[in-house]
């Protein structure tokens, strides 16, 4: 069990490391003075000279890479030259908002998508199945920012029901909830379709298996069979596929946060990118990398928790 955990987390760390190396390489490959890039266009010559000294930008490459990674591992993501604050603080301020958005968005998508997928599998080729199928493909392919904008147009501007900007008053749960409605819908809409498709495919496969036939032969009620004999197994590959697609979720979060002006890692990166504020972009990107690198081990653990066969091999 321990070895399994180490293996999965090790892989995540490897991905993080690779991303860091690629980031570092990209930085080095860019024509121009690294100090300017890192400090942004606002930097003065003195600052540039100082940072060159501090960060050892004239040291040999391997040493630079080593310090670069070393700092990150210690939690030092650099300093934002605009606000003079450590990037890691800025990231930590914004991270919870992104996590909440993703959780709520994915949450309602799962609440809607998984039952839809089940239903489509059980009643295949009925009108609802085909209709859901078309709708799924449609919603998956439409870009999330288009959805977000149209939602705003309808619910905020035309109807005036929901607020557009920000995350709501701190401490006021109701207000924060209202501010979450449209962003989470924009985020989750494509996922309802995606989830229902993979659940449907998975369920169709599982429902045809022998143990379901045995359950029927013992007269178990259909609902019980669907829940404990089919869905319980069909959900496993779904979890894996979700983890693989987490990158898309984070991408959508970027748009949603930017459009709704919600605080979060996405908006952080976008604003910083627009100002060529590299340290903040780097901090945000590395946090994102860590997030999705963690998605794989988390899903693996979840599967091990749900599937006794996997538990036995540990």
């Amino acid at each position, binding site marked *: 069990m321990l070895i399994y955990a180490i293996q999965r987390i090790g892989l995540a760390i490897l991905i993080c490391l*690779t991303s860091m190396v690629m980031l570092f390489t990209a930085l080095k490959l860019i024509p121009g003075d690294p100090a300017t890039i890192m400090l942004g266009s606002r930097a003065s010559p003195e600052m540039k000279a100082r940072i060159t000294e501090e960060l050892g930008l004239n040291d040999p490459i391997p040493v630079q890479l080593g310090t670069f990674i070393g700092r990150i591992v210690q939690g030092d993501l650099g300093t934002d030259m605009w606000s003079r604050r450590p990037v890691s603080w800025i990231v930590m301020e914004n991270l919870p908002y992104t996590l909440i958005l993703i959780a709520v968005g994915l949450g309602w998508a799962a609440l809607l998508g998984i039952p839809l997928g089940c239903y489509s599998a059980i009643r295949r080729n009925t009108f609802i199945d085909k209709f859901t199928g078309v709708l799924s493909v449609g919603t998956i392919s439409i870009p999330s920012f288009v959805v977000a904008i149209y939602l705003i*147009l309808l619910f905020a501007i035309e109807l005036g029901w929901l607020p557009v900007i920000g995350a709501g008053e701190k401490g006021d749960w109701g207000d924060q909830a209202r501010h979450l409605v449209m962003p989470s819908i924009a985020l989750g809409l494509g996922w309802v379709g995606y989830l229902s498709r993979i659940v449907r495919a998975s369920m169709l496969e599982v429902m045809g298996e022998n143990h379901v036939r045995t359950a029927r032969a013992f007269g178990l009620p259909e609902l019980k069979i669907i829940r404990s004999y089919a869905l319980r197994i069909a959900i496993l590959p779904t979890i894996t596929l979700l983890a693989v697609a987490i990158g898309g979720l984070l991408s959508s979060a*970027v748009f949603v946060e*930017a459009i709704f002006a919600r605080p979060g890692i996405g908006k952080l990166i*976008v604003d910083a990118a627009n100002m060529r504020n590299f340290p903040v972009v780097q901090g945000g*990107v590395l946090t994102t990398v860590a997030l999705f690198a963690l998605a794989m081990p988390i899903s693996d653990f979840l599967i091990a928790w749900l599937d006794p066969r996997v538990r036995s091999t540990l």
Partner: protein
Amino acid sequence: MSVPLSDAVKPIAAGGLALLWRRIAGDPLGLLGLTLVLLVVLCGIFAPYIVPFDPFKISVPAKFQPPSLEHWMGTDNLGRDIFSRVIAGSRIVLSVGISTIAMALVIGLFLGLVAGYGPRWLDNLLMLVFDSIYSFPTVILGLTVATLLGASVATLMLVVVVVQTPAYARLTRTATLSIKTSEYVMAIRALGASPLRIIAVHILPNVIGPLLIIASMDIPSVVALEAGLTFLGLGIPPPAPSWGRILQEGYSTIREAPWIVVAGGIPLIITTLGFTFLGESLRDLLDPRLRRVV
């Protein structure tokens, strides 16, 4: 006579177009997809001839006019006719989309062959890099590159190529590995066939088909990526009428001129839906065992 990679590739190679047409024609969604795609492609090709107004012509007195008979989609904050901008935008979509995917295909093909044929360590290294890119949130990758290089068409294209290449490289690599180790190829190698010949005669023909199908299915995401990055201000710079640009400008004036975002979003929806429906229809050619999930 090349080694068959899978039964699914044979129909593509042998008189594929007729089969393609029959497949799509029998599927209403596929037909719809094809129609939409043709609409976009034709708009892109004939854009300069069908725009009613000059997409770049600024006319401040005419600003913020709602849709009318004269301006089908209204005008924006600089008095430019939005419908013309949308049509012109289709050209951008086509050129950026096709060229980047083409480049990614070529690079991916090459790298995949290298990974498949080269030393083990190179293969492992390439696969690690590709897996890291592949699962990386694409928009964030785009933002990073844009920060480093500044927003421009070249940056955008670089981002798309970087994002798309891993998938094609992976496919090529898998095909290369499996064909390279097939008994048939072992035999002709014993007879003295050079790797180059094996690649040209046996690997390439088998890989092209599936690659093209996957590439065509990537078009919606590439279009969305370009539009998204431009929308965030980090893609194609103004005044180019990318649909993302129209959406961005429209969003900032959404209260005064809501029709702008509607105009910017519709072509995106048409394009992504069209290519997706078409791609879904074609996907069965890749794996006939997969009954359509829709």
